[in-house]
């Protein structure tokens, strides 16, 4: 135990700059959550529910969705695109593992770190100070965790599609920003999809994005429960399977392009 304590201490010293960034990031998240808190409190000033959600539910939704949304911008696709553009992908292809799987698992590692370091402390702060609710039921909590994991998988595979496209387009930056803008909105990390105007809700139902944030967080708040929750998760799984297949197909096309035509 002593050994690990020493290792931790030395690591802390090495990463002083990193520590500064950690606190800066935490500060930014706190600011974001405070803004959400005051904003929604003001919105609910003269009314008890919006889109059939009371203030507490809405706050719970907003904070958890914002925390989950934080994680969607840096994904495995970004790293893949970088490797493709730097030419490192050719070396990676010679290694005895599947590059796509490696990137996905690396992302999970990153998610694990940020879960422990950023999200759970923030959630604790929310529970204690801002009146964020706990999951409505025990089953809800379990389904929330499962649904979050599926949602993250889905986000990673959508990100990977963009990453693979770097084989064909040089300027991936614009596509990324477009994706981020769409994700920010259609995943429901800003407002629940149920608050959208009718036509947007319909549109949203035929897109995979709401499976990433809206579905898990709604399961958390209890808006989606019972059979509704299960069928939403089934849709999540279908989207994930579809995106997985898309990634695999274009990835094998891309690899063939590299190996046959030399990139």
């Amino acid at each position, binding site marked *: 135990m002593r050994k690990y304590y020493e290792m931790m201490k030395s690591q802390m*010293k090495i990463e*002083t700059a990193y520590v500064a960034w950690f606190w800066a990031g935490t500060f930014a998240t706190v600011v974001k959550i405070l803004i959400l808190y005051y904003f929604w409190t003001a919105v609910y000033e003269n009314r008890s529910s919006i889109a059939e959600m009371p203030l507490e539910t809405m706050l719970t939704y907003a904070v958890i969705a914002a925390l989950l949304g934080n994680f969607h911008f840096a994904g495995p696709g970004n790293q893949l695109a970088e490797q493709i553009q730097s030419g490192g992908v050719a070396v990676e292809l010679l290694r005895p593992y599947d590059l796509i799987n490696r990137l996905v698992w690396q992302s999970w590692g990153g998610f694990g770190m940020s879960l422990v370091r950023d999200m759970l402390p923030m959630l604790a702060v929310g529970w204690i100070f801002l009146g964020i609710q706990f999951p409505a039921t025990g089953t809800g909590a379990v389904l929330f965790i499962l649904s979050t994991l599926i949602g993250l998988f889905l986000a990673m595979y959508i990100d990977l599609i963009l990453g693979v496209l770097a084989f064909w387009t040089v300027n991936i930056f614009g596509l990324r920003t477009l994706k981020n803008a769409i994700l920010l909105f259609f995943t429901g990390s800003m407002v629940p999809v149920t608050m959208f105007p009718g036509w947007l809700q319909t549109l949203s139902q035929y897109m995979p994005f709401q499976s990433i944030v809206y579905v898990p967080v709604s399961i958390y708040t209890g808006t989606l429960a019972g059979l509704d929750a299960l069928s939403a998760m089934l849709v999540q799984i279908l989207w994930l399977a579809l995106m997985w297949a898309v990634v695999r197909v274009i990835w094998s096309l891309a690899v063939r392009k590299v190996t046959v035509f030399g990139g």
Partner: protein
Amino acid sequence: MIEVSGLTKEYKIALRKPGLTGAIQALFKREHQIKQAVQDVSFSIRKGEMVGYLGANGAGKSTTIKMLSGILTPTSGKVEVNGIVPYQNREQNAKGIGAVFGQRTQLFWDIPVRESYDLLRHIYEVPEDDYRESLALFTEVLDLGPLLSIPVRQLSLGQKMRCELAAAFLHRPAVVYLDEPTIGLDVAVKQKIRTFIKEMNKREETTVILTTHDMGDIEELCKRIIIIDEGKVLYDGDLQQIKERFGQKRVVHFELENKAGFAVPASLRDRVEIVPKADGEAEASNTVSLSFSSRDLSAADVIQAVLSVHSVRDLTIADPKIETIVKEIYERGV
């Protein structure tokens, strides 16, 4: 032109106790140690002189140059360049100086070299005609023609250095500080750069202070050298004199089949010395370095004598380095 007297620069270095406790303590209470980067340096340089300012890394060369160019304020002592005190009158001083700082670019990274020069023209308020004339001259001497339309970041090291040098001279400064202008360049480019510096010195009577590790630069450009070590001036005077006294020192490194039985051959006894191993070099390695003075021996003599007695796998002849000269002077005095 340049008057320096009693120039001293002290740095405070924060002492930090090891460990996390030390790091936290340092937040509240700092203990300092004073390091003298430059101590009581005095010299004076005439207009049009080209002076080599030499010393090992960390000897205080760049600290001095920074004080001369107005980047650093001295702890005590006086500097005057062109009658201006640089650190009190930084902008005024800057008009009359040019500089090349080793590998760091003075040009603008993203834009073509020609545009960079054009910006510098505006920054230094160079009259249009003078500018055109200088540019034409530089383009010819440094062979810049094909480079002018390329952004700096796409240039090779040698190309970049040529462009840098032109930038430093563009506003026809009275004094130019060149910090390692030839580091890492091939012989042809080095030669071009030296020719250019000589040419500018001749035409404009530009005063040049040159720091370098390259003996060739010094020999070709400077009559006078100032050697600095641990912040103090060790030598200030004629290059020729110092070369006669110390520059004759040559070293040959031998890699032997077997070092165990090595002895200096009889014919060389008392005329060569075995160079002691530097710290960190394995004592067991099969290399031996012999130093001798080229006044009484040629490298060929030494090599032949050793080859006749020992079986040698490989050998190299080392050029006399500034560092060795500095070390010599330090150990034996001028």
